[in-house]
């Protein structure tokens, strides 16, 4: 994968004196490389389904496209969600933003007869606004973001549905003849959607920001110890704002993209993303309490989610088990992440 290499070069920047520690995979290594656990789990899950469903189609182009498409759509939102979680906050409003964006695009094009570009622009602007609204609520009220953004999710979902019914008389609206947008957001090769490329771009951008830029440093610090970060001069408000807007825009992007792919806007679509994105991030090694995680890990977590939801179908076993499987993985991931964190909170010698 292109940017596993990227992560490694980012690391080798400063592995000079530490190269001698490379050999054993210890807790220390895991602390420095939050993605190792998730990458191993992804390889394992892939091998598992390759073994049990390899002969029944999991390894075909169709099977591969299946889990990649699922992972891509989830992943574009899971990446900023993961960054938000690293900064110590949640966003449970993405589901409603996906639905709202999808109906906005359809209404603009089909109902109002306006160009698709305008529809996409309005949808993305709505994503920005919801992000700002979330950031403002979280930062000003100091109520846990978990509950604040859950409220936003209901507000936006309800508004999207009510307005959609009011204007068009329905919660869904068809969307056809989208021209250039058809290629940009719904092109397919061998059943693989172009969304996979958007996902890779989103991941590369996020990995760059998190590992290489000062802003990435501030994300970790904000989630690791907000007070200390503030005292050191980290602009917490800016970090919070940027990440919520990033999340809102990404959710709106996925809403617009799926509307174009399915030729339909649906005001109530997308609620699945609310928890799936957070789960993918946690399986990918992001610490629930913040301060720890990596983009490559989140990508692996998303891949795991995609493989399980599509792989089970190919095994021929009842797909009802998918959630059980994912729930179990979530528990294991949370425990592993906590163990790594606790080890890092413990001084090797002395008390403190």
């Amino acid at each position, binding site marked *: 994968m292109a940017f596993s290499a990227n992560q490694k070069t980012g690391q080798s*920047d*400063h*592995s*000079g*004196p*530490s190269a001698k*520690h490379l050999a054993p995979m210890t807790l*220390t290594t895991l*602390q*420095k490389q939050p993605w190792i656990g998730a990458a191993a789990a992804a390889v394992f899950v892939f091998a598992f389904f390759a073994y049990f469903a390899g002969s029944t189609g999991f390894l075909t182009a169709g099977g591969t496209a299946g889990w990649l498409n699922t992972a891509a759509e989830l992943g574009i939102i899971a990446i900023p969600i993961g960054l938000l979680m690293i900064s110590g906050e949640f966003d449970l409003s993405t589901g409603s933003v996906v639905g709202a964006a999808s109906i906005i695009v359809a209404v603009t094009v089909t109902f109002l007869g306006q160009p698709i570009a305008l529809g996409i622009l309005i949808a993305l602007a709505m994503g920005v606004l919801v992000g700002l609204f979330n950031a403002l609520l979280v930062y000003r009220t100091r109520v846990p973001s978990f509950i604040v953004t859950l409220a936003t999710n209901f507000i936006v979902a309800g508004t999207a549905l009510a307005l959609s019914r009011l204007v068009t008389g329905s919660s869904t609206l068809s969307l056809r003849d989208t021209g250039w947008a058809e290629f940009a957001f719904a092109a397919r090769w061998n059943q693989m959607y172009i969304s996979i490329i958007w996902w890779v771009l989103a991941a590369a951008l996020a990995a*760059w920001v998190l590992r*290489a*830029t*000062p802003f*990435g*440093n*501030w994300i*970790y*610090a904000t989630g*690791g*110890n907000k*007070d*200390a*970060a503030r*005292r*050191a*001069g*980290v602009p917490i408000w800016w970090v919070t704002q940027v990440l919520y807007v990033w999340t809102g825009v990404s959710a709106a992007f996925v809403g617009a993209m799926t509307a174009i792919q399915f030729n339909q806007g649906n005001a109530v679509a997308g609620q699945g993303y609310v928890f799936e994105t957070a789960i993918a991030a946690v399986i990918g090694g992001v*610490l629930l309490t913040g*301060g*720890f995680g990596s983009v490559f890990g989140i990508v692996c977590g998303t891949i795991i989610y995609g493989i399980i939801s599509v792989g089970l179908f190919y095994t021929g076993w009842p797909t009802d088990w998918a959630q059980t499987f994912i729930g179990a993985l979530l528990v294991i991931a949370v425990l592993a992440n906590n163990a790594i*964190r606790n*080890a*890092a*909170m*413990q*001084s*090797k*010698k*002395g*008390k*403190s």
Partner: protein
Amino acid sequence: MAQQPLLTLKSVSKSYSGVQALSDVSIETFAGEVHCLLGDNGAGKSTLIKTMSGVVHPTSGDIMWEGQPVTLDSPKEAQELGIGTVHQDVGLIPMMSVARNFFLANEPTRGWGPFKRIDMSQANGVSIDAIRAMGISRDIDPDQVVGTMSGGEKQAIAIARAVHFGAKFLILGEPTAALGVHESEVVINLIERTKQRGTGILLITHNPTHALAVGDRFTVLTQGRVVDQFKRGERDQIMDLMAGGRRLAAAE
């Protein structure tokens, strides 16, 4: 004439809605000297360092910096003057590396425009040199997660960081309070080393032994008042220092 004081408080008082946390406190500090602030729980030590670091405003009294009267409106303003604070919790991010902590919110960058990135090799080199200059002999890996380091090493990073970013005067809030004997010794050495490099230090501590080990001047607070203030050598007995505040309070 003697050298000019660095940070001076003149008759500073602070009351919190009825509670008189500080009354008429005067303190002088000098470059290259350690001024120890002692006092029991509730004596007003934390309130005093808050007035010195711009966190709270005194109700009355004056603050002078290098001979000029100043008002410290925020911690940032105090920092810009050269007043650094290291709290007991050291203010580091446990899950982040040494170098990333050291340069937090001051990251050195290279590259241009959207390609601007943290200059990790510079961050690693500078942070390790600064920590080494504090007398930490262990070979520190700039990539090590700070949470796994010893209490003394964490203090070393925090102090080195404050000095590197321009602190001429350093307020240390009970740096040895949570540490064992050995780690405390490491921290005392750090303070000694920092003072020799010309930084002025205000050391808050509960521990008279630690105070006597590095202190040049001493102030004892009881119930918000200065009950004793003296220079090194003016008293010989540790017991004096320990009993100072209490005896005077009892005599009232």
